């Protein structure tokens, strides 16, 4: 194995008996993080380049950010992205919450089939789903651009919202919910007063996950979208095809920042009481 040969050479020099230190491993990890972060660093650094020819450095400038934030097409695309992501995240989280609550405390014929079905958007390659949905919408005659994209996004966000909620439910004591059922008159009230608050961290991290997934989606939007559905990724794709420019760098850097902020937020919120990890 290659892994072995990579690590074997400096091995004998290390003091035996230390489980924490594997020679060569730290080097590979450094290589790994360089590989992962170098492109991002270059991207951000070049977004501050005054020169229009991206890779020739001619001085520090924030002009491209100013230009990007004044670019109306970009702002409109960003607004579309936000609208679609909010709708898709809200709808998919609502659907996923209902399903997860029942699936977690139920056993019935066909349940494993249902599990497979809910995970289907994760299993089927996105390009396949995208073109199948395109044909479906064309046959049915739904052509309203933004609506088709919202529907498609909602569907593929369901498993992303579902998994954290389901994980949260797994970590709960079923007796709590049963007790709630005894305490409150209606199942609806028991759900609102007990189950919902308990699984809220799961719901929130599910919703944030769905939100990010929708915000970042390109393939589905590209194939399913119609008039007025130019989202930020679609807009950036168009720009990249035209060529590299510091303005694309600036827009990309802003998106990067937003994504990182969102993930950090989701992690912080998810931490709360729930130590449940869905991975």
């Amino acid at each position, binding site marked *: 194995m290659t892994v072995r040969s990579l690590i074997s050479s400096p091995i004998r020099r290390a003091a035996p008996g230390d489980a924490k230190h594997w020679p060569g491993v730290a080097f590979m990890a450094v290589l790994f993080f360089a590989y992962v972060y170098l492109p991002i660093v270059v991207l951000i650094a070049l977004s501050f380049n005054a020169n229009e020819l991206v890779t020739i450095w001619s001085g520090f400038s924030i002009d491209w950010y100013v230009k990007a934030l004044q670019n109306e097409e970009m702002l409109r695309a960003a607004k579309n992205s936000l609208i679609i992501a909010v709708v898709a995240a809200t709808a998919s989280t609502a659907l996923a919450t209902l399903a997860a609550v029942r699936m977690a405390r139920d056993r019935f014929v066909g349940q494993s089939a249902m599990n497979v079905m809910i995970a289907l958007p994760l299993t089927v390659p996105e390009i396949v789903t995208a073109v199948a949905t395109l044909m479906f919408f064309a046959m049915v005659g739904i*052509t309203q*651009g933004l609506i088709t994209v919202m529907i498609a996004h909602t569907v593929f966000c369901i498993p992303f919202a579902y998994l954290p909620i389901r994980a949260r439910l797994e970590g709960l004591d079923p007796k709590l919910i049963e007790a709630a059922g005894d305490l409150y008159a209606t199942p609806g009230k028991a759900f609102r007063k007990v189950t*919902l*608050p308990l699984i809220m961290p799961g719901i929130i991290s599910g919703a944030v996950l769905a939100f990010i997934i929708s915000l970042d989606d390109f393939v589905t939007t590209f194939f399913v*979208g119609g008039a007025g559905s130019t989202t930020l990724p679609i807009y950036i794709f168009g720009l990249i*095809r035209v060529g590299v420019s510091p303005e694309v760098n600036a827009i990309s850097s802003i998106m990067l920042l937003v994504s990182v902020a969102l993930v950090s937020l989701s992690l912080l919120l998810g931490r709360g009481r729930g130590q449940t990890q869905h991975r």
Partner: protein
Amino acid sequence: MKKMSHILGGLALSVGLTLGGAASAQELHLYNWSNYFPPDLLKKYEAETGVKVTIDNYASEEDLLAKLQAGGGGYDVIFPGPTTLGTMIEKGLVANIGVNKMENFGNVLPPFQTLSVDADRSYSAPYMWGTTGFTYDPAMVPGGELEQSWKELFEPRDELKGNIAMLNEMSDVWNAAAYYLGVDKCTEDSGEAQKILDLLMAQKPHVKVYSNDGTIDRMSAGEVAVHMQWNGAAHRVKKNKPDAVYVYPKEGVTFWTDTLAVPANAPNMDAAKAFVNWMMDPENAAIASNYTGYSNAIRGSGEFLDASLSSDPAVNMPEEYGERLSGFKQCSPASKQLRERVWTKLKS
């Protein structure tokens, strides 16, 4: 936890409001090439009419046709060339909007008052017109000069191999290959189509990229030495590379026109018609020309044009090249099928 449900509720509400708001205002959705419509002209239209205009972009006419065939996508105004327009009329994908009866139709120059696929101009108004030749950077080619022949592109010299770029547009590439081989571009003969395919397949390894987007940047940045290009783009290359040469190859040059048309199921038909009429106004047409670098077909737009346009041979074609121009021909379905199959084979 209560707070959270408030936030979620609030989000849902705000989305509802945004959507409701978007639906109520007059809106017009254009579907166009990227970089082919001046943003200032959009603002002018919005200021004059109060209709909100948005543009989505496609990267090739095949993409436009594919979207329209998949149900229209909710666009109000599209910008197809004659080949695509012809297919769309045949398939009933575009609406008969009676362009010839529009108020501003009188401004259209006589040669453009008819079109092979739309003889009486019921479906379409002229947008821009131009030619498809190629551009080269003298500093990057051996000897600083190339022959005025498609040979330079289809059978490139060794120094230029891997240093040329082609348009990713079926009709333009097919036509150029047909001119070079001396084959009728509406041929129905599979043997002749095979010859075209062979030429293109032999050329393929030497092509750096097939793309309609970014041809200006690619030439300006010196990523390729030779680029099959539309003349307006060639004009815009000269802003960064004043020495760039646009060639009208001697074997023949496609002369094309783009049109404004309205999909049969356009959500906002009235606004779409009004927009088409508005675009036949001399000043508006001139603003579009100044931005795109292509000529328009509207009488009286000359006085609004930038001087740099008329002084550039890429835009204002020298008369001696006139006989090299080859206009659009409506080919038979059999010929179109051959062309499509050659293209699919080339691209796969």
